[in-house]
């Protein structure tokens, strides 16, 4: 187990290095002077010169990369030229809202596991085909289209929930402390979560179908175990393992989805911040937002992998 954790942590370091290289390449190997890009389109020549020196643009490329990493390690994502504020500050104020949205969406997403299992156990019934078809249709809906739809139906047409903005207060950053806060959370969280529910339930169904046809489930039946034990004990654990990994990888889509969802619902957060920065060509803010989301994603996947090892002895003892 410890060996596995250690190896996973080493891997994490490599991934972070890889991500920093790719980000560096994207930003610095683009034709033209990256200082212009980073300074923004209305920057003064002095500001461009300042940034050039700060980035070490006159130095060899490995020095530039070194400085880039050094700044990242110190949490220095540069300064927003639009607001003339450090990106780090902007992130700090935007993160709690986004965290709330992401946590809520993940909690909703977990509904996909029981739905998928139920569907697999009722294969060839009307339930299964209905659930599967619905899942497939929802899975194919781009998150911003669903957001537009939810906003219109529940916010504008039915008028039962606020359809833009943020409000109220929270407890421990993410737990809604009042109705005002919760009501602003529901539509974006359901939008983001329901697509994941569709995806996860589809995957869970496939995985469960494979498991209940496996030899070891047949063995469990041959041992005379009651059907409840065959399903709950011998099938469930094996069927959930691959879905956990899929769910981890899918957090990336959820991060991207958060940007779009926050944009449609004008919900203050990292996503809306990045959207506004995109339109203002405020590159430091875009990079800061993307790197922050990447970091969360990488850490979340680490957690998923550790959970995976906890469940699956083959990995634990490797």
């Amino acid at each position: 187990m410890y060996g596995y954790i250690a190896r996973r942590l080493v891997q994490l370091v490599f991934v972070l290095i890889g991500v920093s290289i790719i980000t560096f390449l994207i930003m610095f190997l683009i034709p033209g002077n990256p200082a212009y890009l980073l300074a923004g389109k209305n920057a003064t020549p002095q500001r461009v010169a300042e940034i050039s020196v700060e980035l070490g643009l006159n130095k060899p490329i490995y020095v530039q990369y070194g400085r880039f990493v050094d700044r990242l390690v110190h949490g220095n994502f540069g300064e927003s030229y639009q607001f003339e504020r450090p990106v780090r500050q902007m992130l700090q104020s935007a993160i709690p809202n986004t965290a709330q949205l992401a946590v809520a969406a993940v909690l909703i997403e977990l509904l996909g596991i029981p739905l998928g299992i139920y569907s697999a156990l009722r294969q060839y019934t009307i339930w299964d085909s209905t659930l599967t078809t619905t899942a497939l249709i929802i899975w194919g809906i781009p998150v911003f289209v669903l957001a537009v739809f939810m906003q219109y139906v529940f916010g504008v047409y039915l008028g039962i929930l606020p359809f833009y903005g943020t409000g109220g207060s929270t407890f421990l950053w993410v737990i809604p402390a009042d109705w005002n806060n919760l009501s602003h959370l529901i539509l974006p969280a359901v939008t983001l979560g329901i697509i994941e529910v569709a995806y996860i339930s589809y995957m869970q169904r496939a995985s469960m179908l494979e498991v209940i046809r496996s030899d070891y489930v047949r063995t469990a039946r041959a041992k005379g175990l009651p059907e409840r034990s065959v399903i709950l004990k011998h099938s469930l654990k094996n069927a959930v393992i691959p879905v956990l990994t899929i769910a981890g990888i899918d957090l990336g889509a959820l991060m991207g989805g958060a940007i779009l969802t926050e944009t449609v619902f004008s919900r203050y957060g990292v996503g809306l911040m990045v959207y506004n920065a995109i339109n203002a060509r405020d590159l430091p803010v875009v990079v800061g937002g993307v790197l922050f989301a990447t970091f969360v994603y990488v850490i979340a996947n680490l957690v998923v992998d550790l959970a995976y090892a906890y469940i699956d002895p083959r990995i634990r003892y490797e």
Partner: protein
Amino acid sequence: MTDTESAASFAEPQLDSPLPVGSENEPVSAKPLGLWADTWRRLRRNKLALVGLGIIIVFLVIGVAQIIAGVTGIHGGYLAPYNPNAVNYTIAKAPPSLAHPFGTDYIGRDVFSRVLVASRISLLVGVIAVSIALALGLALGPLSGYYGGAIDSVIMRVADVFFAFPYILFVLLLVVVLGPGFRNVFIAIGLLSWASYARLVRGTVLSIKTQEYVEAAKAAGASDLRIVFGHVLPNSMAPVYVAIAMGIGGAIVTEAALSFLGIGVQPPTASWGNMISDYLNYLQAGQWWMELFPCLALVITVFGFISFGNGLRDATDPKLKE
């Protein structure tokens, strides 16, 4: 799933036929079916997949027609009842009618024509982006799987990194840096999504390269490259076809999302994504038709690819063969 006995012979060789023998509940047919005939037979039973295939065909026909019109300039470069960019304030915000089945938008452009013509953006992005990713994947994957060793390690570690970050965010970052526009969208998607193709091809190459017919080709003196492209590749493609179908659907969504965020295809060129973004405010004012139809076009097309991709995966997955 019951009788999974190997096709081994009774005592020693060749009592059983050299042909694979079906298990008792999935017997072999009179004539052994080819890989594709067999896949088609399974696919045909999956109604959702057939609906998906139908959608893809309709989408391809419309998209290709628009591309041909655009390239040749026939009929003003579009195949639609109206010029998709013709502004006419006198008929602005008209709800659907016989003359304008999808209504008109806030400056009187025909929404139906715009939705039709925009299909070419989706088709081009889907095909070109996936082609770029696939070309990279097909170059690196077999290299990795066939040679193994250091080449394999390097390629797969790099692929790991590409898997370890949220792809959509880096597409966004790359497009922001490259600047908005149609071309940069497919370059960004293509460059950042190669890893899954490479990994898929590598995996199947690994499982296949030890099989006998590859040994036979080697023994017959075929060169390494001919082995890879002549024997290994065609046999490892089934999961890749699935990934292509899913990948095109994914690229279409990504383009639409980027255009929705304002960094994809730029107005006045119609794309489903920028139409959805453009008409959003009018939905809230009750002029639903502008927003509804591009949304429907996008959702139906993406559903087609995902549904077909899923069906193809089920039809080619040996584990699901009953």
